[in-house]
């Protein structure tokens, strides 16, 4: 990895030992501060996983490095820093399955590719079915997945109990567990590390990452993007501007007059105090609006479905943690003495069909990579790769062809609600 | 049609362990509750829902509006309890077996008004209980988020809200200065609601029983 000719120190066990012995000098900065240039080839708005991955792949795959990533707060401060870090590819539509499967494959090698351990823990992912219609949907997903070569199958309560001994699989509960869609390659990841790994690599390629830099306006001349304006009064020219701002994405698109069928809903999450590891898989229940995994630090990380009304608030609610706790105890009654440590919320850019909006827009040079709703962290790598290709070639690659903005007016929805509403 | 020997038996939405008795064709619990906090099944009462303009002559004839109750002394609804249960929506409660008269009474009010209004007999479609005792507000504070302080819900007030997550009409109808509430909900959730009330009331020594002969149709002492 080179950084303007200089080598970036590589991370490895050996380099750690050298540093521990005091022989390595300083690690050096993973990402640096720069004075903004007056013009860039590409300006990416949003320093989340999508913006940073797009910058990384533009540089790595297409040699485009004169890029600025503008982030109004700190990198990862949006959904990328507050998501429950669940990765999987067991979607419902063939378009979706293919797309997310590519992402999981990229994630499998991301630590090595970025020389940054992102701690992808492929511990398996199970989605519980509590009634026959959801069991039918699980079978539907399993069959579609198998046809795409994705490892998915429906397992019965006995097998569930073997994988999760704490689960109450008795038939007498209010929401009996009839089966689950089991997806061994799914799992969790150290989400912040993904953000930092992409940022470090982009930085090493010469990309400028400007934190605390908010975009407040976008200049358009004759239906062509010419640059952006920032809250500190700067104007930065660029022929290409990419909207990677997830929950805030309509505010950015409104600046250029591109309407999007996106509505912002808070999504909440919470974490318990740690306990010794006892839960090796990710467990999701759509019926109970709950999902849970245990991190390598021992905490349980919980999530749910989006808040019941649109809002830009990340304050969180008591309702959420009450419902969550009730439902978690419904599944695993032995956890009632565990304590909830912290709750938070992030913003989700929901689309009508629970699929993203990617590619070109009616304004030339203005690209979008939005509509990530509650499920976009897992799509970071493939989106970065595809958006980079889209920008470099001026047209969306096949893998995202179905996700264009024009599909709504043309009535070609990609219905992922069945697999993404609570699924993560 | 052949003759069917057995006379039809009506059953309310609720059943509690213990003896039952049948009065006026209704089978209900026979236990008598004397404790400080009592839950009584008033399922057999006649229940009519009336709809019409919120502030027209139907309203004037019914004598009350959303949030309030009235017990007409005379007129076609004498003896009934009229609850303003929604904007332009009333609930009329009467003694078991008086359905025909009350229905006719409401219909005559509607006919006289010339307004677009309607009445539906939901006697069999709803569950109705009365909770009485000084600790009732404490019990209800476990299942209902509405503030029951006097300044918000005085005697004679009514509101609709979620009670143990069941949409319920709550009517404050004190009995001789003792707190008392009527709770009225859709029938199939009635047992669940009553069980939730009993569960929440254990701490206060709740008892389940039928209204006594000293009570009038709405469980109100005569």
């Amino acid at each position, binding site marked *: 990895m080179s950084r303007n000719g200089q080598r970036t120190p590589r991370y490895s066990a050996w380099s750690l030992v050298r540093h521990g012995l005091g022989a390595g000098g300083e690690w050096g900065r993973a990402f640096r501060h720069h004075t903004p240039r007056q013009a860039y080839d590409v300006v990416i708005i949003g320093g989340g996983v999508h913006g940073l991955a797009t910058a990384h792949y533009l540089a790595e795959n297409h040699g485009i490095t004169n890029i600025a990533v503008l982030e109004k707060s700190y990198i990862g401060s949006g959904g990328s820093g507050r998501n429950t870090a669940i990765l999987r590819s067991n979607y419902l539509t063939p378009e979706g399955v293919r797309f997310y499967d590519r992402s999981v494959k990229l994630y499998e090698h991301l630590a090595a590719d970025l020389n940054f351990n992102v701690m992808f823990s492929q511990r398996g992912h199970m989605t519980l079915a509590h009634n026959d219609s959801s069991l039918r949907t699980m079978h539907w997903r399993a069959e579609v997945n198998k046809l795409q070569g994705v490892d998915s199958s429906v397992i019965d309560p006995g097998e569930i109990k073997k994988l999760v001994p704490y689960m109450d699989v008795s038939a007498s509960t209010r929401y009996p567990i009839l089966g689950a869609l089991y997806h061994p390659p799914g799992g969790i990841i150290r989400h912040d590390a993904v953000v930092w790994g992409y940022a470090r690599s982009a930085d090493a390629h010469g990309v400028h990452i400007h934190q605390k830099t908010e975009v407040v306006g976008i200049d358009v001349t004759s239906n062509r993007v010419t640059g952006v304006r920032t809250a500190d009064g700067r104007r930065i020219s660029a022929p290409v501007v990419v909207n990677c701002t997830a929950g805030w994405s309509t505010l950015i698109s409104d600046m250029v007059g591109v309407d*999007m069928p996106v509505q912002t809903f808070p999504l909440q999450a919470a974490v318990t105090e740690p306990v010794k590891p006892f839960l090796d898989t990710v467990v999701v229940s759509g019926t109970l609006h709950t999902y849970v995994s245990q991190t390598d630090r021992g905490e349980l990380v919980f999530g749910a479905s989006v808040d019941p009304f649109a809002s830009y608030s990340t304050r969180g609610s008591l309702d959420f943690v009450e419902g969550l706790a009730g439902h978690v105890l419904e599944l695993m009654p032995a956890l009632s003495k565990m304590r909830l440590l912290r709750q938070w919320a992030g913003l989700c850019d929901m689309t009508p069909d629970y699929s993203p909006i990617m590619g070109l827009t009616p304004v030339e040079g203005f690209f979008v990579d939005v509509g990530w709703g509650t499920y976009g962290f897992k799509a970071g790598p493939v989106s970065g790769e595809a958006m980079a290709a889209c920008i470099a070639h001026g047209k969306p690659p096949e893998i995202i062809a179905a996700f264009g903005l024009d599909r709504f007016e043309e009535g070609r929805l990609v219905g992922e609600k069945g697999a993404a509403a609570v699924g993560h | 049609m052949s003759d069917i020997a057995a006379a039809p038996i009506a059953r309310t939405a609720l059943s509690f362990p213990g003896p039952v008795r049948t009065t006026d064709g209704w089978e209900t619990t026979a236990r008598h509750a004397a404790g400080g906090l009592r839950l009584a099944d008033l399922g057999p009462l006649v229940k009519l829902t009336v709809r019409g303009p919120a502030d027209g002559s139907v309203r004037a004839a019914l004598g009350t509006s959303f949030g309030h109750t009235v017990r007409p002394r005379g007129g076609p609804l004498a003896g009934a309890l009229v609850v303003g249960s929604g904007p332009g929506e009333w609930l009329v409660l009467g003694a078991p077996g008086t359905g025909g008269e009350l229905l006719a009474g409401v219909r005559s009010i509607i006919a006289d008004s010339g307004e677009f209004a309607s009445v539906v007999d939901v006697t069999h479609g709803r569950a109705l209980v009365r909770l009485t005792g000084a600790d009732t507000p404490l019990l209800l504070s476990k299942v209902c988020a509405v503030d029951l302080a006097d300044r918000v819900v005085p005697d004679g007030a009514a509101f609709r809200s979620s009670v143990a997550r069941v949409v319920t009409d709550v009517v404050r109808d004190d009995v001789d200065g003792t707190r008392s509430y009527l709770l009225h909900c859709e029938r199939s959730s009635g047992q669940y609601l009553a069980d939730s009330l009993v569960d929440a009331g254990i701490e206060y020594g709740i008892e389940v029983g039928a209204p006594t002969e000293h009570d009038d149709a709405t469980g109100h002492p005569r």
Partner: protein
Amino acid sequence: MMLLTCPNCGARNVSEFRYVGEAKSRPDPETATPEQWRRYLYFHRNPAGWIKETWYHGSGCRRYFGIERNTVDNAQRPAGVTS
């Protein structure tokens, strides 16, 4: 839990209500083009600020009503007040 003020019942917990969405008008189905119709179906304003919206008081008076709400701090005011 945020409070929402129902014009009929007063301030109640928001969990008593169902959020319907931005108040918008239905295009004439006889003359609407597919583009207009689908904008009605799928597109909403999504401002960080005041928006006119419809709510349904499902656990209370069972009435639909309009209100203006600020999507940033959840402040509310009766529909019709202009900002």
